[in-house]
């Protein structure tokens, strides 16, 4: 049994610290938004988790391509790690968004392009795990997983543009203005600091969890091989 590498242990501690700082910044340091009030503070973590989740899904699609070319199982473990962490982060994004939407839009959920795409994306990657569960051979599981993650990764952005045929009410805070958007606002410098620190925080946490999950995958693989050896 190998012990955890030191760098990973340090990263674990760093993630907890930055999460603490980020929570303080979001809840206390950042000024209160005038129109929406305190509920706007959800925004920092909402974007933080959304950004890292999307990063993970994009990485997973890239790992698919690399796996299908190299057929090295290492890439498959990276892909599973990325998708698993992203799936949870995206669920947090949706939950936080709902908490914000209730007072801002007066509804928990609307069939807006971003919300619908988020729901569909979650379903695609849940299906991804169901597909993997139905296959016993590791090599076949990796191949099918890679194909499905690739198909899903291409389909999700198309879904987004397809639903954009309808009008959107989701605010675009960072760039551009949308007259129909409800709940958009301009950020003060303190808000920007909090915002970028939240992005940084969740990127660190993502890397930490990703790394831990890859290590777990490697250990799982080792256990599977040892079991095979014993059974023979």
């Amino acid at each position, binding site marked *: 049994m190998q012990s955890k590498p030191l760098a990973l242990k340090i990263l674990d501690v760093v993630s907890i610290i930055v999460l603490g700082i980020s929570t303080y910044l979001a809840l206390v340091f950042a000024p209160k938004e005038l129109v929406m009030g305190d509920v706007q503070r959800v925004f920092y973590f909402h974007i933080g988790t959304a950004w890292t989740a999307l990063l993970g899904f994009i990485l997973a699609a890239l790992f698919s391509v690399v796996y299908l070319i190299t057929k090295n199982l290492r890439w498959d473990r990276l892909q599973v790690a990325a998708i698993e962490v992203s799936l949870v982060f995206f669920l947090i994004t949706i939950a936080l968004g709902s908490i914000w939407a209730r007072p801002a839009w007066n509804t928990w959920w609307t069939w807006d392009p971003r919300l619908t795409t988020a729901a569909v994306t979650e379903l695609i990657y849940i299906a991804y795990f169901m597909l993997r569960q139905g296959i016993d051979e590791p090599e*076949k599981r990796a191949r099918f997983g890679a194909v499905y993650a690739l*198909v899903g990764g291409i389909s999700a952005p198309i879904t987004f543009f397809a639903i954009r*045929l309808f009008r959107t009410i989701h605010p675009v805070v960072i760039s551009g203005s949308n007259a129909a958007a409800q709940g958009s606002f301009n950020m003060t410098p303190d808000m920007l600091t909090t915002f970028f620190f939240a992005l940084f925080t969740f990127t660190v946490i993502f890397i930490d969890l990703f790394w831990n999950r890859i290590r777990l995958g490697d250990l799982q693989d080792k256990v599977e091989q040892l079991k095979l050896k014993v059974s023979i």
Partner: protein
Amino acid sequence: MVNKATELKSMTIERTRPAGSFIKAVTAVVWKDVRAEFRSRELFSAMLVFSLLIILIFNFALELDIKTRQSVTAGVLWATFAFAGTLGLNRSMAIEKDRGCLDGLLLAPVDRSAIYFGKMISNLAFMLIVEIIVLPVYSVLYSVNLFQPGLLLVILLGSIGYVAVGTLLAAMSVQTRTRDILLPILLFPVVIPVLLAAVKASSGFLSGAELAEILLPINLLIAYDVIFIAVAFMVFDSVVEE
């Protein structure tokens, strides 16, 4: 050494076969499916009866009176095609797997993508035949004229996209332990753009909207068809590889 060289040479010759033999291989797979289906008729009849049942269920579920009919016809049609489609896709791949036909097909000295295109075209053919029968039945039952060239084009484009992804995913799902339930779960979230654009375009044609408005979803359908046929063409090898 000499043997190996000639072997290599023959392999390269095989790889650079003219396009004619590729098309021949595709037609052979399609022909095989059509003939098998013509004898048993199990796939076609199941899909057709299932579609009619779904329309019946929608009739009770949505209370399709004249007013609501106008707005939901496109949605009902595409939901019907999507559900009936999974039935056909699953069965068409399960037959290959159960009787060991897939192994036989894979042994044939043809490009594997020819097998994909063959299965895809035969699946598309069965789906279109079912749709061609469902349309007049729906028209008669609800007195809506569904025989408009625009709508038929949308149905063709939508079915191509649906079957292009469906054939690829069905080839995967039949090789898993949970194969009876897995295909719709894999397929539906991925074909949502097709269903969305197809419903948009169909209801546009049915309500007599302007062409410029309908062109956008139709372009989306074409783009989806092209992208996913290309993707499936590239990855089908890794799905059937043993």
